[in-house]
């Protein structure tokens, strides 16, 4: 299990306007492409020096492919990264603050202590 890789997906998609739209419209295909082409890039190194060992497990891959942000929270993905990206994708479909309050409601079964987010 790799909280780091979940976070890396959320981080790299969130900072790229084209990837935000692609993940919104085709989540499963985007996750597959990203895991195959992007997951091992070291962001400060050139492509010939990528890592070789990073991959999602089945639960992580499915949570991302299903846009399942409550599951991402349970898996310990960084809540700020998840929130920021999902606001970018879905706030537009709701009245002002509507998505944010629905997001809270869908996490209302979570109690303290929350899942550990340390990577």
């Amino acid at each position, binding site marked *: 299990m790799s909280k*780091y890789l979940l*976070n*890396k997906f959320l*981080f790299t998609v*969130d*900072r790229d*306007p084209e990837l935000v739209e692609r993940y919104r419209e085709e989540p499963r295909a985007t996750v597959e492409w990203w895991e195959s082409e992007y997951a091992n890039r*070291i*962001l*400060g190194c050139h492509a010939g020096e990528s890592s070789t060992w990073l991959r999602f497990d089945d639960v992580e891959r499915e949570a991302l492919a299903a846009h399942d942000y409550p599951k991402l*929270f349970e898996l310990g993905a*960084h*809540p*700020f*990264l*998840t*929130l*920021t990206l999902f*606001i*970018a994708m879905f706030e537009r479909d709701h009245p002002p*603050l509507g998505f*944010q*309050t629905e*997001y*809270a*409601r869908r*996490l*209302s*079964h*979570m109690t*303290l*202590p*929350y899942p550990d*987010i*340390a*990577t």
Partner: protein
Amino acid sequence: MAEVVAVIASTHHPFYYRASTATGEERPPFADEWVRKVEAFRETLTRARPDVLVMVGSDHFHQLWLDNMPQFLVGKAPFYDANFYNEEREFGLPRMFFTGQEDLSSYILREGIDAGFDLAFSNELRIDHSITCPIITLRPQNDLPIVPIYTNIFAPPLPRPSRFVQLGRTIRQLVESWPSDQRVAIIGTGHLSLELGGPRQFGPHGPDPEFDRKAVEWISTGDLEGCLSEVTLDSLHLPGNATHGFMDFMLMMGVAGEGRKADYVDTYDLFHTMEAYFTWYPGGRP
């Protein structure tokens, strides 16, 4: 030697810019009072007539990332671009541009490392809303050079609260020993109780009004001892999952000094989080 003419601690609410510039039906009902409070707060900095601003904040996973994460980082560059695409997208923040006070950055790095803080540095740093928000609220003309200092309140393992306080004390000592005749304001931003991406987010108030009340009391009275006796890395999870940003307020209490009452205190209870504004004048009220 340089003089610390003001110490300022503030929340950095990214929605202020949009709320304060909105007109007509777009303007939220809380905007006018918010603007009034911010303009009064701004006057506390203006009155101190600073030449240079040391700005303490925290990168929100913009330039700093988990493959190479510093705990404390000082910007050392002649210029800084500011605000990121996702801050334009979500908060409507404008792109900004700053001039750096590079000689003070060098001094803080050299002397800070010698004082026991293994400070990271950046020669090309893009600043995010933890520093641009207080410029928008406190110095919107953006006419003063800055030294940005970033802390990690975001990606565990984090330094403990006492380490933030120690760094604040050290920053104060370093600025006051900087061989210069400049007037320096030290400004830092953080949070009171805050939840982001969790079940308690975006409620009618901050997630823990009782924590907020105590926090404002600690800060306004300079009660570092009381604050440090209750606040730990573990305890900060309870008021809200993003409340570790309160450690930047603790850093600023370290800058201001143990037992030092704030000369100016104001708060504003908003949905989602409480705003809080504090100013100290080390040399007396100007």
